[in-house]
């Protein structure tokens, strides 16, 4: 599994971006906000990715952009999954009116298109990087709540949960020792797969001018600026490629994690066929 080419590619891409993001202040050829260069220069030896409409080096801005998108995506998914897991486990385990209430709230959030809803929240709070992370978290937790809840519902009637009660266990123990070890891997997998979506949402908000404020370098914002200068194709292309590479890498990572974290997957078909 770990030797599959796709796994290696995804890990390499993510690792590369992490390193680039951390090292950006030192390895970027220029400051990302320095506007002294000639504007709209095509890629050349001096500026590998060219310059943008106000004379900033695109390469440096792409490198610095990683410092916005990567941490934002990860924090966002971490918060959304934590909130969603708590809500989902409580709803699934307790059941009854608690479950119904929590699920109606979840459905409410779910029924709005994510981007619109996030836009509304950011518009209300005021555009900034922090607020866009908050907005997207608010829009994303329902997915995790549903996943966590469905895992809990599956397990709740599983015999091994009853066994813990037979052995003298309390409700708290059942949740900690039987429920969570099943919920967490599912949530982690969904979270990893969602990282790509989170990155896109985050960049999307910036693209619309609702995320990071200028002049902060961020891929979505850069694509937006590039869209206004279509002939200067390098302005939108390079941040676009960067975003695409990270989203693809996140998705591949999610697949890998899913295969790794499910101890029984992949083996079932051949075994049942062999014992028929």
């Amino acid at each position, binding site marked *: 599994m770990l030797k599959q080419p796709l796994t290696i590619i995804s890990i390499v891409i993510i690792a590369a971006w992490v390193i680039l993001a951390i090292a950006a202040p030192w390895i970027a050829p220029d400051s990302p906000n320095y506007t002294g260069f000639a504007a709209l220069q095509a890629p050349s030896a001096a500026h590998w990715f060219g310059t943008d409409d106000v004379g900033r080096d695109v390469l440096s801005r792409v490198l610095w952009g990683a410092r916005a998108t990567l941490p934002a995506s990860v924090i966002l998914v971490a918060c959304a999954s934590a909130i969603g897991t708590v809500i989902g486990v409580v709803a699934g385990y307790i059941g009854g009116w608690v479950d119904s209430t929590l699920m109606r709230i979840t459905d409410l959030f779910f029924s709005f298109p994510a981007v619109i809803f996030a836009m509304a929240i950011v518009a209300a709070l005021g555009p900034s990087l922090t607020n866009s992370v908050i907005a997207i978290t608010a829009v994303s937790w329902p997915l995790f709540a549903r996943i966590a809840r469905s895992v809990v519902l599956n397990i709740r009637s599983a015999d091994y949960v009853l066994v813990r009660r037979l052995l003298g266990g309390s409700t708290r123990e059942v949740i900690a020792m039987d429920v969570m070890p099943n919920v967490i891997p599912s949530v982690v997998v969904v979270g990893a797969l969602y990282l790509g979506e989170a990155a896109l949402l985050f960049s999307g908000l910036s693209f619309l001018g609702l995320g990071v404020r200028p002049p902060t370098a961020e891929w979505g914002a850069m694509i937006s600026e590039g869209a206004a200068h279509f002939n200067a194709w390098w302005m939108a292309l390079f941040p676009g490629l960067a975003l695409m590479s990270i989203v693809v890498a996140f998705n591949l990572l999610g697949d890998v994690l899913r295969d790794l974290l499910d101890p029984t997957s992949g*083996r079932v*078909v*051949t075994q049942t*066929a*062999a*014992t*028929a």
Partner: protein
Amino acid sequence: MTAQFEVQDLSVELDGPAGTVCVVDSISYSVDSGKVLGMVGESGSGKTLSVLGVLGLLPGGARARGSARLNGRDLMALKPRERRQVLGKDISVVLQDPYTSLHPMLTIGRQMTDHVRQHLRVGKSEASDIAVRLLHEVRIPDAHTALGRYPHEFSGGMRQRIAIAMALACGPQLIITDEPTTALDPTVQADVLRTLRELQLAEGLGWIIISHDLGVVSALADEVVVLYSGRIVEAGTASELLTRPRHPYTRALLDSLPDAGHKELVTLRGVVPSPANRPPGCAFHPRCRFSTQECAEKVPVLRELADRRLLACPVDPLRKG
């Protein structure tokens, strides 16, 4: 109407994660019309896969070789479309799980009439009549009303009866049942088996019973083949083989049955090997207390003994009975 179903050198291979695995290794047997063949083996013996192989129902990644002739016509040489015409019409299969053997979203009537019309080219009302007649024969009460009901409205035993009715609807010459009553309660099982036996005798059908239950096989079979790890280890008439087994594995199967005696049950050490780990030579030798060096090296050949018994055991330790 005499018919004969003859399987020769049937082998089934599966593609596994570690390469191709042989799950059925060149087995041969035959069934005449009106006769019952019991195919005995535990899980892992390959009995189900061998039948799926003959019928062209193997899952992807599996292949079957050999021949299976129904009245001289080799089913395994047929194209898939031709084989589909045979399946359900000349040969019918009733499988193990009463909960998945019927389509959950269609009424019984619809399923049966679709099936009959596909094979017999009759009109709707004639198909309906055939369906009612068969439901009546398998003792489903209120056959007319039953046509309009869905599978989930029936109990497990009733569902198996309906599956049997469908299997018999097009007048097959051979019926194959794979543990059809294992999931049912004892009295329900007895009822279903009786019904099937009466119908089989009345229509003169050939019947292959695949089962690990030696009681069921004793009650119904004329001939028996015993499978172990994809190979036939012993074959013969039911009355002889089940009372005077010659192969150590057959003997062990019979010895391990409870007899209300409260004594410790005889068990074999070890487990049935998975096809990927089949021991060299005789597949049973690691668990056999009579095994010799020869057993570990050479795959035993199925020899014919007196009395139409076939035995794959060079040692033949039980020959004196």
